[in-house]
């Protein structure tokens, strides 16, 4: 009857994958520029300008992945969209205010009278912190099944801190690529400090998930699925060790390997993401609503899918163009 099988079966998976992809891209891309904001208080005024310059041309496009992710949740799984966002009402509001503060501070700090600059720098830092912390909090709450008790709240506070430190780690590795001299040295130091956030965060989530949900417990520890999953922690562990070794040697004289910590942290985030995706599939609201139950009508999803097939490659192509134009060490940002 259908050329490609029943779309009601495979469309939800395709959209869950697309949404997952854009969340992952968002976390990596905005992760590094949020991280740069979190590191702001540790830098001198001069270094702050260079840190801003390293993310200036990118931050807006990075945040657009969040809009796409939330847009896909909203279009593909309208029922889940409402449940998740109303359950996370306050952290979402805090995140939004954080995003507002940091987004405008970018512009204001360079254009407002110079004696206001310190305040806008502060707004940039505060906004980045609010955003990272609330995202971490939401991640924690989501893993806990969106139920508010003291224990889940405490766990979400932990993930909030860990994700923020994790972001500062990926931010620092980005700065290692984009800066040189003093600031690069500092960035290496920051990265060494930040990596524990990632390790502890991954550890906490890996411990907590199977305890909270017996379904996840079975998925992880029953044979033979466990074999499938085993490479994830092993590879992550190996990567962390490699990054640590690299950080001890960086910066090198000819700046070789400066890209390595960033690339490795992208892989780390990706592995962690797949771990989560594997555990939660097929649920979109943990333990309550599967992607099949929450999906919208196939006709509407089709319309979007067709557009996506054409537009997504284009977006990726011109994003690549932008990253090529602004490759190399960050110089100061001017409009000429």
């Amino acid at each position, binding site marked *: 009857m259908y050329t490609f099988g029943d779309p009601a079966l495979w469309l939800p998976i395709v959209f869950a994958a697309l949404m997952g992809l854009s969340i992952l891209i968002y976390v990596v891309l905005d992760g590094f520029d949020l991280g740069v904001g979190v590191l702001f208080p540790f830098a001198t005024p001069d270094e702050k300008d260079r840190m801003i310059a390293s993310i200036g041309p990118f931050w807006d496009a990075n945040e657009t992945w969040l809009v796409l992710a939330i847009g896909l949740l909203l279009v593909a799984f309208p029922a889940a969209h*409402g449940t998740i966002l109303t359950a996370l009402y306050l952290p*979402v*509001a805090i995140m939004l205010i954080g995003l507002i503060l940091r987004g405008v501070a970018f512009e204001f700090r360079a254009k407002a009278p110079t004696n206001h600059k310190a305040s806008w720098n502060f707004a940039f830092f505060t906004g980045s912190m609010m955003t990272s912390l609330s995202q971490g909090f939401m991640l924690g709450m989501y893993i806990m099944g969106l139920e508010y008790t003291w224990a889940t709240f405490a766990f979400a506070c932990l993930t909030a801190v860990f994700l923020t430190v994790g972001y500062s780690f990926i931010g620092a590795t980005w700065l290692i690529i984009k800066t040189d001299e003093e600031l690069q040295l500092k960035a290496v130091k920051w990265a060494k400090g930040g990596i524990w956030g990632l390790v502890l965060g991954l550890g906490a989530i890996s411990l907590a998930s199977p305890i909270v949900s017996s379904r996840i417990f079975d998925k992880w520890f029953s044979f033979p699925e466990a074999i499938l999953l085993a490479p994830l922690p092993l590879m992550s562990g190996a990567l962390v060790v490699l990054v640590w070794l690299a950080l001890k040697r960086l910066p090198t004289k000819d700046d070789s390997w400066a890209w390595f910590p960033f690339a490795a942290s992208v892989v780390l985030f990706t592995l962690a993401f797949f771990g989560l995706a594997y555990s939660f599939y097929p649920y979109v609201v943990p333990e309550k609503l599967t992607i099949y139950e929450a999906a919208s009508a196939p006709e509407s999803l089709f319309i979007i899918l067709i557009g996506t097939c054409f537009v997504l490659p284009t977006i990726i192509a011109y994003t690549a163009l932008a990253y090529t134009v602004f490759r190399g060490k960050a110089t*100061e940002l001017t409009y000429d």
Partner: protein
Amino acid sequence: MDTLILSRIQFGANISFHILFPTITIALGWVLLFFKLRFSMTGNTKWMEAYRFWVKVFALSFAMGVVSGITMSFQFGTNWPGFMEAVGNIAGPLLAYEVLTAFFLEAVFLGIMLFGFSKVPGWLHTTATFLVAFGTTMSAFWILVLNSWMHTPAGFEMRDGVAHATDWFAIIFNPSMPYRLAHMLLASGLTVAFLIAGLSAYRWLIGDRSDGVRATLRTGLTIGALLIPVQIFMGDLHGLNTLEHQPQKVAAMEGNWETGTNIPLVLFAIPDEEARENRMEIAIPNGASLILTHSTDGIVPGLNNFVAEDGTVLHPPVAPVFYSFRIMVGTGMAMLLLSWAGIGLMMYKRRGVEGLPKPLLYILVPMAFSGWVATLAGWYTTEIGRQPWLVQGVLTTKQAVADVPAPFVASTLIAFLVIYVVLLTAYIGVLFYLARKAAKGEPIGTRVPQSQQAMVPAE
């Protein structure tokens, strides 16, 4: 106050704040492209000066638009989950296309447009400028398609309380879409025209006599003078379209209670919904019939037609619709008067910008934000006039509201309002600060790293 009313205030506050900045960026992108092309063609540096100054305003407005827009896209889920559950099959693809075809385009090329001037070839920079302007216009297109569909839904059928698309062409080109899109794009053009004219007048008044400021003052006034008659014409068409599809809204706009012929055009009144009549009315006989039906004895719908047998009111609250409509039209008239007076004087005295008298320049400065006033007033007319419906005839606002505790909504509302007041003050302050800096001839595109020229405050 309950969650419904608080959520409405919150949504209204957020979108009002958001729309201020798109209104500027949509048209300013095209104006910047115009400056850039003029510079390439004439080689005259005054166009580059104009570009340099206004690209800063653009960057700032764009950032404000982006961050407030992100807030908007979360609002559907946090405050109005019923909206997506009921009409998500239609609203969803439209919003998705907006993100895919507009947001990414503008966000990515903005970086190249702002910071790539010396890093990419000239043609690529001009192309980037074009794509940013095109992207903002595309996003206006998609969001206005959705908004128009909410006013005049078409091309769908309801199955078990959920809207399913049957005809995408009818959905996109729904009856009010062309009018609303044209009216909004023109509104954006007018807002930018008066912003440019106003800030340039300010620079002129504090002593800036550069060629750049002459060029922008003249450009601003010219765009304004050209667009305002078109806008008034479009507004009329838009009103006729609304008369056809949402007569109760037009009745509220006109402040007309009884359906009838030879209805007067009410210039001012205090609508009293308790007594169901106007107090202190000043009106032009037969005016409303003439405007709405183009004949003095045409029939104009009245509000009393929209009250059910049992007394349930099915029309929107009258006073806010009535007043905001008058504010919009009044602002439009002021724009017409000022821009034509300005252009007329320049042509009559043949001295260009020098021919503009001081009082006119003084009025132009506060008029810099007249576009905002008219745009907001227009949106309040449209949106409040749709109440109690969220999607006309399909979904009421009440059905869509989220089930979150009122204190949550209240506390976040207060937080948003505080932020908005601070940011709006900072934004307007910085525009005038940039104007003063430019007027003093300080280089606005500095090559020195930002903090070295700053008197680095202790941090």
